[in-house]
């Protein structure tokens, strides 16, 4: 195997790993705020790793550049979406879950 292939494999696997972490987090975390953390951020990072793998696979032609653009737009839109969800939740008056609640 060439170095490039190893790199691609490594990136894809870590990408999948973080996507799985995001899914697990979605199930395990207690409320909408904490779940948004998991759904938006680990997910973003997983997608970043996978897309980097894709970019390397294309090997430096135009498609690579387009993949990079995809990454840029993900960086812009993902936090915005997460912020919109959380802000809507805050506007609805949903109280964030805290550790104290669990004890009482």
């Amino acid at each position: 195997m060439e170095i490039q292939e190893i790199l691609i494999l490594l990136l894809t696997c870590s990408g999948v790993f973080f996507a799985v972490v995001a899914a697990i987090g979605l199930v395990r975390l207690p409320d909408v705020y904490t779940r948004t953390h998991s759904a938006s951020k680990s997910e973003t990072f997983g997608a970043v790793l996978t897309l980097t793998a894709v970019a390397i696979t294309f090997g430096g032609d135009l498609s690579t550049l387009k993949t990079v653009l995809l990454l840029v737009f993900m960086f812009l839109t993902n936090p915005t979406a997460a912020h919109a969800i959380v802000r809507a939740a805050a506007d609805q008056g949903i109280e964030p879950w805290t550790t104290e609640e669990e004890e009482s």
Partner: protein
Amino acid sequence: MVVGVTDLRLLVPVSESVTLRNTVAYAIRHALERTDETEGAATIHFVYPLSERPTLDPKSEETTVADTLLDRVTVWTEEDIEDDAERVTIDTAVIGTEEYLFSPVDYANALVRYARTHDLDVAVFDPEFSPLGTTPLLPPLEAEVRKAGLDVEEAPVQRERRSPPLVRRGTVTQFLALFGVSYLFYLLLAGSLETYDLVTGAISASVVSVALWQVSLTSPVRPVRAGKQLGRLALYLPYLLWEIVKGSLHIAYVVLHPELPIDPKVVEFDAAVWSSLSITTFANSITLIPGTLTVDVSQRRFTVHALTPTTYEDLLEGSLERAVRFVFYGREATEIPTPRERMNDGDENT
């Protein structure tokens, strides 16, 4: 001097506009007519609301503009009042120096606060009053001020006939910047420099820039400053990526840990960033970094939801905030204290 019921107390917000001279004249005339009738006194306050605080320097460009404009207004009032100076008191002020005014509500709040402090009960608006540049502000602003209990009047001055929006505001550099960026983006997606792509690209870019140059860029482009900011942004991105990697690993650890060691907390703090673009960048960066999530931003007050103690410690240490300031304001702006230090200062003061 005792403030009588018949006294006229006017608040006149000013900004650079073509009808400002006439508005000033109207306010003075109005005051003089009223004092003729009631033999009371009149007070007129001309205030300039600063929209943004773009630099750390208290003598910023906008402050200078504001001072010059208010000086001009003072001269005009002296011309108009002539010998009735004892009946009409004139005052000028710059407001909004300590905050970031963005929406009509912000402006209304600042104006109403000023009016309350100085006991003013009528607001006279210049029909062309538009401190935000291209965005129409006046109708909602008037509504807000009226809701707060002030009488609102629009100065009945001759409005300049509105020229079509395409030539109203915006500069050639602004247009060219948008055209250039759209054209490059088109060619990038097309991936070739053949005649067909060059021509269609030029057409698309023209359509985009003609339609949107008023909307997409609200402030004039300063090529040098924009270039410097882009350069510093290039330095910022690797840093942001590294923070994302660190944060993701941390969150993966927390989520996979059998005991789920989370301790969510909502943190509020005033960020030391001032323009709408830098605030957006900062809010977006906070959300991008795993473990922190911007819930709400109101002016400069950030409400952030943090998942674990480490993440909000990191946030209050302020390295991210410092990095964003570095991108927009250069190196000297990095020496501002961290949010935690500022918070502690606030505690000591109160």
